[in-house]
C-alpha cells in the first residue's frame, strides 16, 4: 500500500509506538500504515458510514462522527498526536476544532489547502471569480470547503490559540519542503501546508521543565 505524498509526510512526523487519532480518516490508509509499520495505537473518526465500515472491517478502531461535534468527548491529552488532514477548511468552526485538537492531543498535525497560492490570486485578480484549481476543483456553490484560509491565516490562528508551530511543511508541485509559517514566499508558493503544532504548556513539559505524569487514561493503555 502506498500512501499519498501528504500522508507520507504526516506519517513521518509521528513517533513510533505513539497514540494517534486521525480525524476524518477515510478508508483508514494512514491508520493502517501507522498501526502496521510504526506500532502506533491508531484510532479514527470518520463521517461517512462507508469509510467507517471499511476501517472496522480492516481491524481498525474507528467511530462514526465529525470534527465539529465529537472531539469534545475525548479527555485532555488522550493522544500523542491528533491528525486532521485537509479537513479543517470543511468544518463549521475551524478555530474550535483546532482548540480541541490541541486539547486532546499532545501534538496536532493539521494540513490545509492554501487559498493564497499564486494561482488562486491570479484567477481571482484576472477573472474576478472564485478560483477553481486542480487541488480545489469545486465551484463556490458546491464546495465542502466552507472556511478557506491561507498559510499565514492558519499560522496566525494557531498563535492566537497559544499554540506553537513546531514545523511547517510546504507542498507544491509534488515537492515538500520545510518553511517558516509566516514566510511570504511560502504563502504564495504553497499549494497546501502541513503544520505540526503543540500547546505551549505541552512544549515546556516536553522540554524537560516539568515531569508531569501522563494522565491515567492514557497511561492505562
Amino acid at each position, binding site marked *: 500500500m502506498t500512501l499519498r505524498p501528504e500522508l507520507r509526510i504526516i506519517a513521518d512526523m509521528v513517533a513510533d509506538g505513539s497514540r494517534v487519532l486521525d480525524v476524518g480518516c477515510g478508508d483508514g490508509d494512514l491508520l493502517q500504515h501507522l498501526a502496521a509499520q510504526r506500532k502506533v*495505537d491508531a*484510532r479514527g473518526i470518520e463521517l461517512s*458510514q462507508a469509510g*467507517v*465500515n471499511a*476501517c*472496522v*472491517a*480492516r*481491524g*481498525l*478502531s*474507528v*467511530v*462514526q*462522527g465529525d470534527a465539529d461535534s*465529537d472531539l469534545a*468527548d*475525548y*479527555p485532555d491529552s*488522550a493522544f500523542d498526536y491528533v491528525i486532521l488532514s485537509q479537513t479543517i477548511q470543511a468544518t463549521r468552526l475551524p478555530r474550535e476544532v483546532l482548540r480541541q485538537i490541541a486539547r486532546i492531543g499532545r501534538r496536532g498535525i493539521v494540513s490545509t489547502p492554501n487559498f493564497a497560492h499564486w494561482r488562486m490570486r491570479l484567477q481571482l485578480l484576472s477573472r474576478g471569480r472564485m478560483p477553481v484549481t486542480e487541488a480545489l476543483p469545486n465551484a463556490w456553490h458546491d464546495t465542502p470547503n466552507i472556511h478557506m484560509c491561507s498559510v499565514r491565516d492558519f499560522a496566525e490562528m494557531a498563535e492566537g490559540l497559544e499554540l506553537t508551530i513546531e514545523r511547517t511543511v510546504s507542498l507544491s508541485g509534488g515537492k515538500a519542503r520545510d518553511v517558516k509559517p509566516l514566510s511570504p514566499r511560502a504563502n504564495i508558493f504553497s499549494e497546501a501546508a502541513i503544520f505540526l503544532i503543540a500547546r505551549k504548556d505541552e512544549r515546556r513539559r516536553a522540554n524537560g521543565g516539568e515531569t508531569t505524569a501522563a494522565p491515567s*487514561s*492514557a497511561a*492505562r*493503555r
Partner: protein
Amino acid sequence: MPDDRAQPQPTERTQTLRLAGPRALTLDSGQVLDEVTIAYNTYGELNAARSNAIFLCHALTGDQHAASVNPLTGRSGWWDLMVGPGKVFDTNRFFVISSNVIGGCMGTTGPKDIDPATGKPYGLTFPVITIRDMVRAQVLLVDHLGIAELLCVAGGSMGGMQVLEWMASFPERLVSAMPIATAAKHSAQNIAFHEVGRQAIMADPDWRGGHYLTDGVFPSKGLAVARMAAHITYLSEAALQRKFGRELQDRATVSYAFDADFQVESYLRHQGRSFVERFDANSYLYITRAMDYFDLAADHGGQLSQAFKWLKARVCVASFTSDWLFPTIEAKRIVHALNAAAANVSFVEFATDTGHDAFLLNIPEMFTTFRGFIDAVAAHRGVK
C-alpha cells in the same frame, strides 16, 4: 452435566450446569438462589491456551441455541447466520458459548421451575432478576468452564445490555466486546411497551396471579398479545409497508368484521400463536422487568463513562438506521462514554429498513465489518 439431546452439528454440545448450596447465586435484589441450573450450548473446541472463547448473550426471547436447531421449535438458532464453520464467529477457530439467562424458560432456573423450598413452581415467588444477575450467572458458567478471559462477548438488544454489563462489572475478563442494537439504559418508551405486554399477560384470566402452572392452565391469549405488541417494535414502518402494505389475507374484499382481514394482522396473530408454544408467561414478566431496570450510568454515580473506567477491551458498538427501539442515538451515547473513558472503541451504523431485528438478519455488510473486528481481535490476542 451433559445432556444427551440430538446434536445437529458435530461440534455442538448441549449441557447444563447445576450449582447447589447456600447462596449459589446472590441477586441484586438481595435475595439468593440456593439451587441454580444453567442450560448452555457450546460450539467448537476450546484451545489449549483457553484463549479462543466467545460468549454470546441472547435477547429477550432468545435462548442457548444460538447456532443449533432449537429442539422446541425445530427452527435454526437465532444467530445461525453469525455462528458456524467459516462464519463471523467461526467455530473452526473459536469456542462459542451461549447460555439461557437466569429467569428464562429454556432450561436455566426461572419462574416455571420448582422452588426447592416448597416443591411447587416458583411463579411470582421467583426473585426479580436484573441484567447484572444474568451476567453473574454467566460468569459462574465461564468459571466452571475454566476460562479466565473471553476473547469476545457479543449480543444484540437485551444481549447487548448484558455485554455492557460485562464491560462494566467484569472488564478484566474481556479481550473484546460487541454491544449491538442496544442501550445503556431502557428508555421510557421501551418500558412503556413492556408494561403493555405485562398487563396483557396479567389481564388474561388464565394467568391466575402467576399460579397458572399449579392450576394446569396457561395465559396463552395474554402472552400472545404481549408478543404481538412487542413484535411491532422489532420491525420498522418501512419494513411492514414493504412486506404487507394493505394487502388482504385470503380474500378479495374486507369482511366488515373483525377477522384478520389484513395480511399484517394475520402475520402478527401467527407470531403470537407460535410464541406461546415456546415461551413461559412469567419468564416474560421477569425478563422484561430486568431490561426495564437496566441503567448502567445510574449504577456508576450517574456517569456512564465511569462504568468503563477499568475497561481495556476493544469494543465494537453497532446500530441500525431503522431501529427505533434502540436507535443510533443510544449507541452514540455508549460511544461518547467510551471515548471519555479513553477506551478502544469502534462504532458502525448499518443502513437497513428492517428495524431492530436487523442484527439477526442477513446483512452482508454487517458480517464483513464484524468479521474484520473479530479477526483483528484474534490476531491481537494471538488466536489462530
